């Protein structure tokens, strides 16, 4: 069920948008405290020791590593890249610690703060801005600053780095780590389980509605360092949390491997909203130097009436391999996936979702918008699986593709597996291109061709942007080089 569509006509404006240079390319020169390149049990023990982990974590890592050795790198995705030499990768890198971790932002290396400022993430300002967003910022592999923790603690909310959670809340980690994405899940998930260095942990207790958007900015910095984050979010009964993840990375020549794992667990009547804006370095116009982004994200609606909603805006990375999914186990639980993926130059994206309906009357919605420009290849790959017991399950999928220029491609691979007669599954797909006549029409009204393209692309993505929290929506639009739509009328 694949359709490959190529544009026949070329659009100058589309090319210009596609050829825009990456705005956030720069490197800070903080000395890294790194492991030697390569992967072995020894390296894993080094990482675990460096992080002063309890025994169960080391065991988890070693089991994952031994399993990983038995796996082959998957090749079914619609992407091409040179073979990765896993023995050339540095699996641990941390900014030099000054004794214990910083107690406040004042103690954080000013250079780090400067880096964040360049990326438009002024932590100081955010702190002053009185608790709109709490940031658990990750620089390379170690958390360096956490704000608003005190406020959250009063409500019993845990929001900390993964390493801290391992030390402070080992029971929660033990209970939930690998419960949604087991280390046996896939090649990259196994690799992550073996070598992950840090990430975020969130726990929202029963009946608590998290009063602010939780946010983490990831950033890859040291050369040749694969970054393997691990994020675990647990919402207990009747809890609510909205979590934001955003990333940019500095320009460089070596490809960088990124294999994150995100696990979400939603108990009865709880809601988890997870939003991502991904803007890692996509490589130059020939695709050299971009990030390889192989991510496993999955949420489990474990309890009845629970809800998990994924929203992603993927504009960066040279390769994106990512399928945030939902296991709808609890009766009446709801899974949502809203996605914008933009590929230009030589970028390749193979992304989509998996919705697995287990419980009765479970519902899922999939809205995917793929934009291809330059020589970009954009693939939607999605699975909707309705198991025997999922009486009354419903799914609605809509996959739209937009093409800019005549050398890009859009592909759609929807997989449907329906085992229950009472289920309803709807799938809609469309492909459009930005036409010369549309651009000329805008130009005739005084709008430049470049702005016209931005405007049309933005209009195309509106349904997804409207799912993002306000500040993220703004960032997403910035990333697509678009002025804010709908501010009037």
């Amino acid at each position, binding site marked *: 069920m694949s359709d490959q569509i190529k544009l026949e006509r070329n659009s100058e404006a589309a090319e210009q948008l596609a050829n825009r240079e990456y705005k956030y390319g720069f490197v800070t020169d903080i000395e890294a405290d790194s492991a030697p390149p390569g992967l072995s049990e020894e390296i894993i023990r080094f990482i675990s020791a460096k992080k002063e982990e309890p025994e169960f974590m080391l065991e988890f890592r070693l089991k994952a590593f031994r399993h990983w050795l038995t796996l082959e790198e998957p090749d079914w995705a619609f992407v091409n890249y040179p073979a990765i030499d896993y023995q050339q990768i540095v699996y641990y890198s941390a900014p030099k610690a000054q004794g214990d971790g910083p107690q406040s932002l004042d103690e954080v290396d000013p250079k780090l703060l400067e880096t964040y400022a360049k990326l438009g993430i002024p932590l100081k300002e955010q702190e002053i801005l009185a608790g709109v967003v709490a940031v658990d910022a990750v620089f390379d592999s170690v958390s360096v600053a956490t704000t608003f923790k005190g406020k959250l603690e009063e409500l019993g909310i845990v929001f900390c780095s993964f390493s801290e959670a391992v030390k402070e809340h080992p029971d929660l980690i033990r209970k939930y780590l690998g419960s949604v994405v087991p280390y046996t899940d896939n090649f990259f998930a196994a690799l992550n389980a073996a070598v992950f260095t840090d990430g975020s942990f969130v726990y929202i207790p029963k009946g608590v509605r998290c009063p602010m958007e939780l946010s983490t900015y990831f950033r890859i910095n040291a050369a040749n360092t694969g970054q393997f984050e691990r994020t675990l979010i647990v919402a207990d009964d009747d809890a609510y949390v909205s979590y934001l993840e955003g990333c940019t990375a500095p320009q460089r020549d070596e490809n960088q491997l990124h294999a994150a794992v995100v696990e979400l667990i939603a108990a009865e009547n709880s809601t988890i909203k997870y939003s991502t804006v991904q803007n890692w370095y996509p490589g130059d116009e020939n695709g050299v130097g971009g990030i390889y982004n192989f991510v496993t994200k999955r949420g489990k609606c474990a309890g009845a009436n629970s809800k998990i909603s994924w929203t992603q805006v993927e504009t960066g990375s040279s390769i994106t391999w990512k399928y945030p999914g939902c296991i709808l186990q609890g009766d009446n639980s709801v899974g949502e996936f809203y996605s914008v993926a933009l590929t230009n130059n030589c970028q390749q994206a193979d992304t989509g979702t998996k919705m697995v309906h287990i419980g009765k009357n479970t519902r899922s919605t999939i809205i995917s918008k793929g934009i291809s420009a330059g020589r970009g290849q954009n693939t939607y790959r999605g699975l909707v699986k309705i198991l025997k017991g999922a009486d009354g399950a419903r799914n609605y999928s809509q996959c739209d593709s937009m093409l800019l220029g005549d050398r890009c491609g859009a592909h759609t691979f929807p997989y449907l597996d329906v085992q229950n007669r009472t289920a309803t599954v709807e799938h809609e797909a469309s492909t*459009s291109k930005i*036409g*010369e*006549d*549309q651009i*000329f*029409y*805008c*130009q*005739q*009204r*005084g*709008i*430049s*061709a470049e*702005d016209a393209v931005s*405007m*049309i692309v*933005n*209009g*195309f*993505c*509106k349904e997804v942007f409207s799912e993002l929290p306000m500040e993220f929506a703004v960032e997403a639009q910035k990333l697509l080089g678009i*002025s804010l*739509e*709908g*501010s*009037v*009328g």
Partner: protein
Amino acid sequence: MLSVKNLKASIDGTEILKGINLDVKAGEVHAIMGPNGSGKSTLAQVIAGRDTYEVTEGSVTYMGKDLLELPPEERAREGIFLAFQYPVEIPGVNNTYFLKAALNAARKHQGLEELDAMDFLMLVREKMKIIQLDEELLHRPVNAGFSGGEKKRNEIFQMAVLDPKLAVLDETDSGLDIDALRTVAEGVNSLRGKDKAIVVVTHYQRLLEHIVPDYVHVLADGRVVRSGGRELALELEKEGYSWVEQQTAGPAETRG
């Protein structure tokens, strides 16, 4: 205001305009008539700057500037408006937002302050009355799902908001019933002014009953074959275009 001299233009090597001469002064309304394929719409598109047509000879001067040197968006910002024969649909882009971006692009170009949301909304409300546009259309994507009549009305509404110096209406009457035609014509008439000019491209005489032109030019096979006052349109109506086409065999005669 607009001076077209010996304009020749072709598409994919086929010459469509074969030496057009046209002079439009401020305050005037000119009608361009002619049979299908005579080059009426091509002339409108070339004035607006559509690059699918290649200008091979001649010149177009607008307010003292070489128009052919300017990209289409700058022509628009300088006050040229083309009401499209087939207005283009832009899904997902809000009609009002689109128009605000267009207006502010022009204002910025002219060194004026951009209108904020409130001021813009007031302007829109005022202009909507002129053209009797259904307010609901403001909130829909540009032309998406509009009926033929709604699209044409939306073009004139845009014209009202952008307030151009030179408006070129390309077959604005096609697809309009008689009531809609009257409304649109009234809208256009309200936008006439002594410092503005309008070029009406049309196949039929009926629009000219409502938008009364000062001059009528008849195009055939890429040339202006007759020019005259409004009575020329009536003559055409009576005699039909075959009468003109017979004349194109001989040398072009220009009057008026």
